[in-house]
């Protein structure tokens, strides 16, 4: 039952993704064509609010609801950030969706996107398979 709160948070996130049309292939095209501010505004303001929130959490040394200290995992640079990032960018422009919107698109009734999601799972699996052979 402890996971219900994450389900609810996911529902809220899914609603926001649909209502702001982030899940629209057209909106992603508009973004990469630099023809609208919409997506930049969403990602940019999300980052700013996230940044301020983390600053406050650190400043006030807030704890979780279970009274644990809040730890943010460190991301270590590896070349996968670059190579993988470019490959994801390629996929993002084609599908018009990053992983979150894929789930929301299926919920919105675009059943064919369940194939895209399965294919994304296959892509992740393939990465696991050849991970050691890839430059990082």
């Amino acid at each position: 039952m402890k996971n219900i709160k994450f389900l609810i948070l996911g529902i809220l996130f899914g609603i926001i993704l649909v209502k702001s049309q982030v899940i629209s292939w057209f909106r992603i095209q508009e973004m990469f064509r630099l023809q609208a501010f919409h997506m930049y505004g969403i990602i940019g303001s999300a980052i700013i609010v996230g940044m301020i929130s983390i600053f406050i959490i650190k400043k006030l040394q807030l704890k979780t609801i279970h009274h644990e200290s809040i730890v943010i995992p460190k991301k270590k640079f590896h070349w996968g950030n670059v190579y993988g990032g470019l490959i994801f960018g390629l996929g993002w422009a084609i599908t018009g969706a990053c992983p979150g919107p894929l789930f929301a698109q299926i919920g919105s009734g675009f059943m064919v996107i369940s194939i895209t999601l399965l294919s994304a799972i296959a892509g992740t699996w393939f990465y696991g398979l050849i991970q050691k052979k890839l430059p990082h």
Partner: protein
Amino acid sequence: MDIIKQPWPWYIAGPLIGLIVPALLLLGNKAFGISSSLRHICAACIPANISFFKYDWKKESWNLFFVAGIMAGGFIATYFLSAPGPVNLNPNTIIALKQLGVKDFSGLLPHDIFSFSQLLTIRGFIFIVIGGFLVGFGTRYAGGCTSGHAIMGISSLQWPSLVATCCFMIGGFVTTWFILPYLLQF
């Protein structure tokens, strides 16, 4: 209710998404990120003795509840909170896409590309199947996606996430401007 049914502007949606970052931290020390869920699904269903998938995915099951929620949220928003209709796009985007052969602008996705009837055409296969594969492979190779790197990573001032986000954008720009015109011709 009318305001809810209209599409939400960026300055409402963006800050709300940003608030998910502290919500997840305060509710249980969870770092915002979606693409990890794909790894957990692999670890749970098809680990195949690959070391990358040998870990206790059940400890990360919150992430699977989160993405199940996203799917349910998509359903609720579409069937109860939306007025159907085309996306209010920049007319220049519509002109450019029409020139590239996109015909359907009636919904959130072009039906003439993303539908089961297109799946076995070369164009449909590229956009539905290959595209998805690249998203799954690329995000895991990069160690995160738009949520994990761009929002969570940059919010917590981690420079590798900034590098990854720049690469997402470069990949997207190059694809949109130089590759997509060819892919849409199939």
